[in-house]
């Protein structure tokens, strides 16, 4: 976490923003940098990243999209400094922060994008003991999320289940054929699995507690970018949060946009996803609670070594969010 002193020093150096000026009497300075780099890697649930492009321009930025490579996602691009800000899954983000990566989490976006599907042999999470679970890879978002769920019900993800690593389409087929017992779906997979009547929902993180009470997607920025560009960080976060509101308010338009821009093919699945995800929660839920909750689960799963408090102190900064909650209501 950036200290109060660093934050104020950055503001002063960057924008001529007098430290002694009361915040309420000062106008927001221009961003310290005219360019912001965002990832072109977008999933349906991270649609606010797509919507934010015009809003970032309105905040004074030239937007540069960084093309995600096949082996690297938004989070890795942020950590490497190739991308300044983006939306990432909380589990992998915590793992990266624990590994010393240069990432600062700024806000939550929404809970609820993952859904666990199982065969008839699986009725609850505890039924997964001794079962086969398909994931795209160890360390992938589905693997990390499901590991947190397993530890929450007292199972050890390292010993109590058998992980089968397969590409997504193959994993879905394995579930359909009953050759694996469970598969963690991310949008638009849950919509597709339901439509094709493959498996059944075991845990829906949009509806089932405790998962529905915590963010799964959050805004993360490169730590050096945040430190050097506090005004730009706040402006960029404002664009992302406005975009999040727009996803809640105008799902039909955003679903069409996702198809028009070829991020997905099925408008009906995209619309179902956007309607199901509670984007309006960014004001209500405490993002620190989400980081603490998932850090505890990941520590139990042996996936991180740091305490939740260390993850929070090293990898989060809520100051911008707290200011924006007062400026942007809905």
């Amino acid at each position, binding site marked *: 976490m950036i200290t109060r002193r660093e934050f104020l020093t950055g503001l002063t150096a960057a924008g001529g923003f007098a430290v002694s000026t009361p915040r*309420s009497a000062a106008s927001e300075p221009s961003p310290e940098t005219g360019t912001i780099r965002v990832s072109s890697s977008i999933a349906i649930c991270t649609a606010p990243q797509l919507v934010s492009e*015009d809003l970032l321009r309105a905040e004074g930025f030239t937007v540069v999209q960084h093309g995600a490579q096949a082996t690297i996602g938004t989070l890795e691009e942020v950590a490497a400094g190739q991308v300044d800000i983006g939306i990432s899954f909380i589990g992998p983000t915590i793992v990266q922060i624990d590994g010393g990566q240069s990432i600062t989490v700024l806000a939550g976006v929404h809970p609820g994008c993952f859904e666990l599907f199982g065969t008839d042999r699986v009725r609850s999470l505890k039924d997964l003991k001794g079962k086969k679970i398909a994931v795209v890879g160890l360390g992938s978002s589905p693997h990390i999320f499901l590991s947190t769920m397993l530890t929450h019900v007292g199972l050890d993800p390292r010993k109590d289940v058998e992980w089968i690593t397969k590409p997504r389409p193959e994993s879905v087929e394995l579930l359909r054929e009953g050759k694996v017992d469970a598969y963690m779906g991310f949008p638009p997979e849950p919509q597709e699995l339901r439509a094709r009547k493959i498996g059944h929902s075991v845990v829906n993180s949009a509806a089932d507690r405790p998962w529905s009470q915590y963010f799964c997607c959050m805004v993360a920025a490169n730590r050096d970018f945040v430190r050097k560009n506090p005004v730009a960080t706040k402006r960029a976060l404002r664009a992302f949060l406005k975009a999040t509101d727009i996803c809640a308010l105008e799902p039909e338009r955003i679903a069409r946009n996702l198809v028009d821009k070829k991020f997905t093919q099925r408008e009906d699945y995209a619309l179902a996803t956007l309607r199901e995800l509670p984007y309006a929660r960014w004001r209500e839920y405490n993002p620190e609670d989400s980081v603490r909750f998932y850090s505890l689960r990941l520590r139990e799963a042996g996936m991180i070594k740091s305490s939740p408090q260390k993850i929070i102190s090293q990898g989060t900064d809520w100051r911008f969010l707290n200011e924006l909650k007062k400026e942007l209501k*809905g």
Partner: protein
Amino acid sequence: MPALAHQPGRDARLPTIGAAPPFALTTADGGRLALADLRGKVAAVTFIYATCTDTCPLLTAKLAALGKRMGKDFGAKVAFVAITVDPERDTPDVLRSYAQAHGARGAGWAFLTGTPAEIKDVAQRYGVFARKTDRGDVDHTFLTSLVDRAGALRVQYMGVRFDPDEMLSDLRSLLREGGR
């Protein structure tokens, strides 16, 4: 139930985001109105279009009810400005009819139109994006911005589901600040 995160203290001042984007557009009476003309008043600036059949009328009705609750301050100290996002169709006459049909009457209201370029520019600078659909509707962001007496942008409301009591409280808070 978690507490709403944006519940400021009773006496908390609203933040100052920056100078509100200026505009000078055509009123429903055919005159011109600039944001600068509203200096000394608290203004709520929003975006609508007259043939909108779903959300715009709800927003207009919500604001009209708020205007009534402002009492004698509405018009004298508070102005509501509705800018069309469909300037090709929303002539001053069309906007005047829309205002009458939705109860947005009185000196506190201004419905504005302009050239497509003018409207596009002001909408973008307020962070509102509009696009005509194949059906002839206009997809646009519902964003209402509160501007203080000195012309500073203080708070923005997304959508139409906001709490009218909260907006009324913010308008009154800006009135209490007086001129700056």
